[in-house]
């Protein structure tokens, strides 16, 4: 028994040694170390960590990813992990090289393709292959696991795919839950088939508790939303040139005393905003330089009146089929019918966000700064008067 295990161990070590010899030869020529055609964003940028992954972790220095000096020194790696990793890396790299060969063939077909649909189909297949070819690359794995999503290059299909998976695993579920539970669906639009990750923040806030990304459904004070938000619209599908977007913020909880019910108010309207996979944010600098050419309704923050309960600011993002005329979109912002707006302009809802507000002590200041008259005050007891 003992003899047999020794034998197999010797055999496996010999195998490893032979593979190691091969790997030192071929590592410089592998597809994953060739950046002539591949984007440099697929590289692991930290040289120390890269050295730790591809060579051994030097026990006198420890892994570079651990910050604490004494913990770094105390670290012990796993036996034989480096040699096994080399074999695994070579094997996966071979698989990836095969994928890249297939891609080359497809690219030639794209050059010869006749119709647009054929080109699109081929490009989709190329993208799927690119994801497969890079998904198990350890450098890409490291970047997606430990770098923040803002640092990843969204022009690369593999990063987009992994970001999409991350989004679907958490942020999308939170957003959809809030949209349904707060009845944004169906109070504003019937339903939503989410395609893009929509994030919102109010960067004018000097207090850090209000300057970070807003969690959907959060209740915010009026001063924290007193300036137009920064909106990030992350597309996961390939955008070849540019896609135009329409963004609206509506308040479906404006009291309508004539009917003893509610009406919808348009609080903010942007249209014809060109975005793509990489350039994905309607930021302050965009608003400062090109704000007027996108805006059909100036931003007016929600200013709920005393005792009028919580009000929802529902932000909807639409993909446009064609450019729209801003003058035609502009109109009175009260009694706004978002459903007909979407239908007449043939907009495709792809993402949404929501935050809530109620009366607070900063509402009056915000109203004054926007030149609105003083808000009404309602009796705090709800009456039993019927809807008219």
């Amino acid at each position: 028994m003992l003899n047999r295990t020794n034998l197999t161990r010797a055999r496996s070590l010999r195998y490893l040694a032979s593979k190691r010899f091969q790997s030192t030869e071929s590592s410089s020529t592998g597809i994953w170390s060739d950046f002539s055609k591949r984007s440099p964003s697929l590289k692991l940028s930290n040289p120390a960590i890269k050295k730790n992954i591809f060579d051994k972790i030097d026990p006198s220095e420890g892994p570079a990813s651990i910050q604490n000096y004494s913990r770094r020194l105390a670290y012990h790696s796993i036996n034989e992990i480096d040699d096994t990793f080399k074999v695994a890396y070579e094997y996966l790299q071979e698989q990836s090289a095969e994928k890249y060969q297939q891609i080359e063939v497809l690219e030639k077909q794209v050059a010869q393709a006749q119709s647009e649909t054929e080109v699109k189909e081929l490009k989709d297949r190329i993208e799927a292959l690119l994801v497969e070819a890079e998904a198990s690359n350890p450098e890409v794995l490291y970047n997606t696991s430990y770098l923040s999503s803002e640092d990843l290059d969204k022009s690369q299909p593999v990063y987009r795919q992994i970001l999409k998976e991350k989004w679907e695993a958490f942020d999308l579920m939170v957003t959809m839950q809030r949209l349904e539970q707060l009845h944004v669906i169906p109070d504003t639009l019937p339903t939503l088939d989410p395609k893009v990750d929509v994030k919102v923040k109010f960067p004018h806030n000097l207090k850090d508790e209000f300057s970070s990304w807003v969690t959907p459904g959060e209740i915010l004070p009026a001063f924290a939303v007193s300036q137009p938000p920064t909106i990030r619209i992350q597309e996961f599908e390939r955008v070849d040139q540019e896609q135009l977007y329409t963004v609206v913020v509506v308040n479906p909880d404006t009291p309508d005393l004539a009917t003893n019910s509610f009406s919808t108010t348009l609080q903010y309207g942007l249209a014809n905003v060109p975005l793509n996979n990489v350039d994905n944010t309607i930021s302050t600098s965009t608003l400062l330089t090109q704000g007027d050419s996108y805006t059909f309704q100036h931003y007016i923050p929600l200013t709920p009146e005393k005792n009028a309960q919580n009000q929802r600011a529902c932000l909807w993002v639409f993909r446009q089929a064609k450019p729209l005329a801003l003058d035609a979109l502009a109109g009175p912002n009260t009694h706004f019918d978002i459903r007909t707006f979407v239908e007449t302009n043939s907009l495709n809802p792809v993402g949404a966000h929501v935050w809530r507000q109620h009366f607070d002590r900063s509402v009056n200041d915000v109203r004054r700064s926007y030149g609105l008259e003083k808000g009404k005050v309602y009796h705090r007891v709800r009456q039993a008067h019927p809807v008219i």
Partner: protein
Amino acid sequence: MFKTIWGSDKAVASVAATSKIFIRGKQKAAMTPSTQRIVNQLSALSASRKQPKLLSLCNEDLIKNRTITNAWNVYKRKLFQKRDEQFEKQYNSIKNAMEDLKQTSPELFELANAKEQKRFPLEMRIPTDFPPNQPWVYNYAPKK
């Protein structure tokens, strides 16, 4: 007679040597007190706390580990794919051969596909309260 008694006595002695011998009085512990203390402490701990600690690996090693796992999965998948292809080929060739046989000689096809007759079907078994220890042998033949 005498001889047999001797023989039986020997057998008794050998059995006594292997079985536990009763000792009168307070038993002394086989373990040292310090070992006993550790055993007692461990017995008070729940099983989950006696598990070895989860390995806390650095990011680099985790990536290496995931790469190795990925490679192993790809390797296994390829193996299975190869095997499945082989099976499919085998099945197809059997099927083609049978089709061929059906066309050329229906009698031989019938014979080749004839169901094997059971000599002792399971219905012959007399019902009992508990299932049998031996499996039922359909084509039982007595040993020669």
